[in-house]
């Protein structure tokens, strides 16, 4: 079921926000692909990164741990990491694992972009 390894879609939108669309399952491999896709677009001192989890239903702790490493990197650069369209169960998982303590979580992409657009990084 994971024979296909789709590359996450990433783009930099106006305001310098890097938006990465995650796949349906964030495991170790997908987590690393997400992190790599995000880092490839870091062109600023204080990166602002938004993961859109519209398509994501399942995550595992290894995948989230890779995102936590990325989060630490972003925090070290005084940047911002955010998520949008997060299912209730994934939001709870983020809460349990400490992601929600340091990353911002928005209900949808438009709200996220509006809020992050005001970020001074």
């Amino acid at each position: 079921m994971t024979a296909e390894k789709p590359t996450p879609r990433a783009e930099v939108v106006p305001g310098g926000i890097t938006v990465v669309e995650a796949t349906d399952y964030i495991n170790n491999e997908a987590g690393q692909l997400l992190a790599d896709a995000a880092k490839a677009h870091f062109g600023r001192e204080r990166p602002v990164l938004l993961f859109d989890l519209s398509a994501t239903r399942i995550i595992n702790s290894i995948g989230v741990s890779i995102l936590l490493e990325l989060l630490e990197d972003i925090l070290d650069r005084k940047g911002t990491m955010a998520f949008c369209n997060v299912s209730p169960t994934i939001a709870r998982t983020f809460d349990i694992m400490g992601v929600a303590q340091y990353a911002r979580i928005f209900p949808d992409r438009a709200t996220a972009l509006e809020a992050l657009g005001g970020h001074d990084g």
Partner: protein
Amino acid sequence: MVSEREPFVAEVRLLLPPLEGAELVAVRAAEVVGRNAGFRTETLDAVGIALAEACLNGFEHGRNEGGIMVRLALEEGEGRPTAILAEVEDHGVGFGARRSRRTGRGGGRLKKRGWGLVLMRELMDEVDVESVPGHTVVRMRKYREDRG
């Protein structure tokens, strides 16, 4: 403590090899079983994440040649499904001797390792682990949201 309760109104047994992504077979099976019994998406998402963690633990610590056994069952009460029972069995070293070999660095300000059992306990209603060297069963139960 997850107690045994009968009868089961539906049951699925899977023998999963330690292949990349094999845990998703169990997750999808639980989704099919639960959806047919009227469980909500949010409940099934929680079962899915917990079940994936249990399977990954089994793959990591079990004997690779044997794979893991996953058993999913719907429990019935007052004539309708009331809970999903998910069991994951492996024949590895046992929980007491386990040390994670999963990829990922452990340092930094955020804890990145050892979340599997924590997530299972937080996302499921009941979790019980029976483990001796050579045989481990993780037994989890999630109740239907509207059970009486």
